[in-house]
């Protein structure tokens, strides 16, 4: 589990911004962080990496405490097993791709491991080139390889694909997925791109004004344009979430568990466990699962 409960105040006066977040997230997954600009997404990553110190709270990953203000524990970024991919790549301009990797690697890292990563990111031919002579996509692949060389238990990706064009972004999404499958670090991915989050993430944290408003599966958060025709009848609601004027309900229909988005205003008092009467209409389908 990656658990954290953090508060941090930034700035003063009118520019004051407070971050107050709490979550317990499964390890080994890709977790998206979604929300408007200024919601505190990057600040959360900076706190988790140790680049910023929280005013209050703790960070615990797989029972290892990285910071706890009550116990006066604070591991510096150097002491945390973190990989951080910035939006602007931040490869070291004075080093070639290979030198960037060897600089990041532990001293006893075998050469084969470096080559393996270069291979996985298709940078073997570019290993002796300096970052300035690489394309944006190549730079980001090299930065990703560098972030993974130390086998981080937490990989933080701060809008890593935002500055890239559509084609490169799609191919890099595949890289992220395949590298994650191989190394399995708990990954937090900040992105504004709903499609990207839906494609890459197992869970999505939604943030607003410095707070986590919900942690849900991507399809639950972003909905789906798919629709379903339901037979009129009574359905029991298994779970229910109200989100931005929508009512996300999970119910059983025949042998399938289905998630639907309904207009929240039409069902003001509905709760989990209630039975809902639906009259043969088309609904926005979010997901389906066959029940056992």
């Amino acid at each position, binding site marked *: 589990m990656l658990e954290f409960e953090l508060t941090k105040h930034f700035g003063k006066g009118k520019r004051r911004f407070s971050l107050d977040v709490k979550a317990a997230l499964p390890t080994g997954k890709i977790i998206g962080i979604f929300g408007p600009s200024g919601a505190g997404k990057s600040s959360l990553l900076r706190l988790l990496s140790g680049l910023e110190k929280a005013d209050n709270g703790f960070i615990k990953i797989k029972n290892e405490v990285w910071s706890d203000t009550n116990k006066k524990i604070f591991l*510096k970024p*150097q002491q945390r097993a*973190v990989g*951080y991919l910035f939006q602007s790549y931040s490869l070291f301009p004075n080093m070639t791709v290979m030198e960037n990797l060897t*600089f990041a690697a532990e001293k006893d890292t075998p050469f084969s491991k470096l080559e393996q990563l270069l291979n996985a990111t298709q940078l073997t031919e570019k290993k002796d080139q300096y970052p*300035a*002579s690489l394309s944006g996509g190549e730079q980001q692949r090299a930065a990703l390889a*560098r972030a993974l060389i130390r086998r981080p238990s937490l990989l933080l990706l701060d809008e890593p694909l935002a500055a890239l064009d559509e084609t490169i972004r799609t191919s890099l999404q595949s890289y992220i997925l395949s590298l994650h499958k191989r190394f399995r670090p708990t990954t937090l991915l900040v992105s504004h791109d709903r499609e990207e989050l839906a494609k890459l993430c197992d869970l999505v944290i939604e943030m607003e004004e410095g707070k986590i408003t919900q942690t849900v599966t991507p399809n639950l958060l972003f909905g789906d344009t798919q629709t379903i025709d339901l037979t009129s009848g009574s359905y029991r609601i298994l779970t229910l979430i109200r989100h931005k004027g929508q009512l996300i309900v999970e119910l059983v229909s025949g042998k399938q568990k289905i998630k639907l988005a309904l207009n929240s205003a039409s069902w003001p008092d509905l709760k989990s466990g209630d039975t809902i009467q639906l009259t043969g209409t088309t609904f926005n389908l979010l997901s389906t699962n066959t029940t056992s």
Partner: protein
Amino acid sequence: MNYAPIILSFQLALVTTFCLLIIGIPLAYWLSETRSKAKPVFEAAISLPLVLPPTVIGFYLLLVFSPNSAIGYFLKTYLDLELIFSFTGLIIGSIIYSLPFMVHPIQSGLSNLPNNLAEASYVLGKSRWTTLKSVLLPNIKPALFTGIVLSFAHTLGEFGVVLMIGGNIPGQTRVASIAIYDQVEAMNYAAAHHYAFVLLVLSFVILLLVYVVNGHYFKNIGRARI
């Protein structure tokens, strides 16, 4: 022509520049990233030699180094070190006098680097020292070069501070600028001209070197990015 004052000037400039590198780099690094409220105080203190007449700095150093002052007395009694009218005193005076010429370019170079360059290094487990040595300094080579050359050239042309602290002892504190003054006082314009011309040419060559090397560096960077 007696070349001793020119050689002494070079020795002073070399030692001062070396000491300034050791002092200036950590100081500039700290100034470039500190959020301390005391930062403007340090910046103002470091920049003082830019606006103060050198004689003012020389005068206060004279007072501080004098055996009648607490510091001067301590140095003389416990370390057997007399800084007035000595080459060591000249070095200390020159370090203070040329400090902004080393600190400002390096501080500006470091401040202009993207923030996350250092942060990327920290999250890769690298210490602040390793980050400075392997990541930050190699990426501000032109600023470092400018700092080194300006400090060297500024020390080479120093007069007021040297005169106040060092006086005019041949072979010890009589540097080229003092020798010029000395020769003019003695109405020996030919000798003064020799010293002055050597300093003029050297200063021009040094500055030319800064512009050529930095121009070449940026041109190469530009090419690499195309």
